[in-house]
């Protein structure tokens, strides 16, 4: 086998932050290589370098034996390198077909013929088995999972020599969809870099693996020759034994007799129709659902951010009417949304300011001015709680890795001293280490009497953490499982609409 991609001693820094220290790897034609590593290990930087979005400080990249130094994605495409980005690269107000044409994903054109463009886009989507996306729909109006499939289809369609998939399955409820197409491309000689935090997926799709840690490539091997434990060790430098042991610890049962921290009845928001759902103090309730089953509407309805809800909503005994985040904050509920980039972080502000923004009123001192010292102390304490390195606090938040941004958002939420946490897919696209931190924070929060309602696309997470899981299907809750009953295969069944009993099914149909 000949190497399609050769990378030697690649280095890149941003200001004083070293993003890549020394990365070297070789990928052969037709090889599907997994790229693993914690947040901040340098994966995203590497992807950006290969795609021509940024340029390296030093090091060498060779593609098909020739020097490769792209200065823009246009040049990357000319060398047949295509990337499906984790943060997605769709233009929101252009429709699906226009998104295919805008960057020349459908060859060079100068005249845009709408009908023809839509027809060829339709044909491409059909080729990739994407039936539920209208070519005339604005990309920004699609669900995250749909956008992700679109991004991937656009990338695969160009049949690149080097295919880079950055967390392609983060928002995909059914990653199997992707594998066939990727394998097909690899069989034709394409080299694939596949980045994912889910080991099961990596094992299913990839032949080999390279682990990055601290900006260096620390480990490369065939996947068949390495155990999960060894991979985790290479990634985080500690063994998984400790975290598995944490599972065995029995958690205190929630106090179901007390006033629930969150209670909805006859609740309607957007597509969501939830008859009855309550979260007791100390309870972690999971929501499981395939994409677009109304879970997003349920969360934003409860959080009061977009859709006006109907029906009753009580937060720690306080009835809430209408929209508005502030009154929910006062009642004790805080929401950590799905889209970090657009709904969560405040770009341009420091991490510190991002964490304290919701609770600034608590640190106002003389003359209505912010007491900077007090603010710093409180933020530092919150940062420790979610395991953010204090050095990061003074940096603009957009310079932090996705995982650290997510931790910062969680710290912001916790600073409001809520009684109920609303988390929408909190671990999407974050690394193992961050996940463990978030789990620890969630458990501690519940142990102290807080309630958590969280949606996750990672079923193992629900199995591991939730006291109770409610399964949503077409806007309704169609099943509920408790404790030992929560198993992945049962969740999947319910999520696909196979109701546990005829009675529940009857409810859904009615």
């Amino acid at each position, binding site marked *: 086998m000949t190497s399609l991609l050769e990378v030697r001693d690649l280095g890149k820094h941003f200001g004083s932050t070293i993003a890549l220290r020394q990365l070297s790897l070789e990928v052969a034609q037709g090889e599907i290589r997994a790229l693993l590593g914690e947040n901040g290990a340098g994966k995203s930087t590497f992807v950006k370098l290969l*795609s021509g*979005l940024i340029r390296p400080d030093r090091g060498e990249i060779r593609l098909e034996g020739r020097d490769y130094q792209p200065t*823009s*994605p*246009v040049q990357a*495409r000319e060398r047949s390198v295509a*990337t499906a*980005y984790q943060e*997605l*690269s*769709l*233009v*929101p*107000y*252009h429709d699906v077909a*226009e*998104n295919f*044409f*805008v*960057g*020349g*994903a459908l060859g060079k*054109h*100068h*005249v*845009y*013929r*709408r009908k023809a463009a839509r027809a060829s886009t339709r044909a491409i989507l059909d080729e990739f088995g994407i039936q539920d996306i209208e070519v005339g729909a604005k990309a920004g109006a699609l669900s995250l999972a749909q956008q992700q499939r679109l991004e991937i289809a*656009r990338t695969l369609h160009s049949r690149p020599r080097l295919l880079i998939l950055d967390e392609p399955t983060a928002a995909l409820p059914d990653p199997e969809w992707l594998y066939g197409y990727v394998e097909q491309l690899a069989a034709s000689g394409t080299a694939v870099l596949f980045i994912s935090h889910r080991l099961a997926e990596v094992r299913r799709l990839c032949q080999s693996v390279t682990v990055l840690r601290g900006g260096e490539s620390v480990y490369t091997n065939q996947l068949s020759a390495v155990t999960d434990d060894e991979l985790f060790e290479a990634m985080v430098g500690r063994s998984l034994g400790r975290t598995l042991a944490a599972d065995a610890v029995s958690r205190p049962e929630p106090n179901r007799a007390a006033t629930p921290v969150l209670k909805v009845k006859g609740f309607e928001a957007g597509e969501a129709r939830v008859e009855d759902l309550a979260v007791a103090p100390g309870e972690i309730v999971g929501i499981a659902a395939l994409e677009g089953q109304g879970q997003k509407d349920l969360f934003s309805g409860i959080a009061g951010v977009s859709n006006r809800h109907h029906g009753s909503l009580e937060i720690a005994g306080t009835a809430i009417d209408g929209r508005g985040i502030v009154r929910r904050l006062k009642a004790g509920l805080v929401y950590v949304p799905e889209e970090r980039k657009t709904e969560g972080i405040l770009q341009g502000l420091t991490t510190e300011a991002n964490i304290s923004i919701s609770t600034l009123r608590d640190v106002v001192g003389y003359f209505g001015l912010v007491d900077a010292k007090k603010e710093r102390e409180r933020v530092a304490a919150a940062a420790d709680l979610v395991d953010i390195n204090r050095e990061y606090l003074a940096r603009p938040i957009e310079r932090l890795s996705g995982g650290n941004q997510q931790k910062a958002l969680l710290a912001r939420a916790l600073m409001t001293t809520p009684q109920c946490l609303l988390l929408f897919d909190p671990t999407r696209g974050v690394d193992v280490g961050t996940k463990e931190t978030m789990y620890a924070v969630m458990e501690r929060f519940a142990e102290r009497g807080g309630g958590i309602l969280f949606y996750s696309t990672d079923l193992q997470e629900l199995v591991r953490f939730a006291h109770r899981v409610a399964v949503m299907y077409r806007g309704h809750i169609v099943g509920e499982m408790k404790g030992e009953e929560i198993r992945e295969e049962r969740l999947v069944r319910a999520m696909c609409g196979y109701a546990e009993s005829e009675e529940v099914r009857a409810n859904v149909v009615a």
Partner: protein
Amino acid sequence: MWLRNLRQPAVVAIAIYILMFAVYAGFQGGFAVSPYGLAILANSTAALVFAAMAVSVVMLTGGFDVSVVGIIALANVIAASFQVQSVPGALALYGLVILVGALFGLVNGLFVAYVGLQSIAMTLGTMIVSSGCALLILDTPGGTVPAVISYGLTDSLGVFPIAGIAILCGTALLWVLLRRTTVGLRIYAVGQDATAARASGVNVPRITAVAYVLSGMLAATSGFMLAAQTGTGDPRFDPSMLLLAFAAAAIGGTSFSGGRGSIIGSVVGAGILALMQKTLFVVGVSSFYTGIFQGVLMLVAVVIGRFALAGEEE
């Protein structure tokens, strides 16, 4: 479907225009719809229309081009400085004016797109430079625009005013460019999300520069139309023209944050502002009130646009 169209700012603007024209014609009687009346209206609208197109194209990329008025002044004095006699001569003069506009646009584009200057800062500079150049060519208002231009462009072809035809052709050309070519798609894409556009394979700097060049050419056209209408050269740039051009874009629903809007909206917006001056005059409202009416109208249009947008996103 047609109900959805009603939410489009451009459609709202067209409705306002028709309504206002009805009022105008009601007070003016038959003169308003006579060839001469139509020609007067078209002549007083044309310069603002092209100025509005010029600022809109750059607004779509998420930038602001304030050099438009400087280029207008420069184009105006150039048109008043060459005594051409024939139609080919007039076309050559127009070519020269367009070239000058494109050059200033190119300078704007290169510095904004490749050097990374902020658009307002850069175009403020070129606005001052271009109006300075205008003063070099003609140091006081005066001079005569060749008759072939000042009569030719303000006349009528049958019942159709030539300035009106120019407006329609310019609008149609720009619409096709923005909506039916990949360059247009990319201009919108850059304004919506430059990062995503770049990652999708759009050459963002080049597209940005193209938008500024277009804007310069449209501004030059505006200056040429202004010269035809006034028949004389004036090196002073007109700040109210700049503000009205941005107001026209806002009325037409072009977003100040880029990526959204329609050229037709901006054109009709400019038409509304020009027609409003006429309407207030014929209704008998003192011209001192014109600004108030124009401003309020713009705010109303922006508020309507805001609600239309909210409806679309629901």
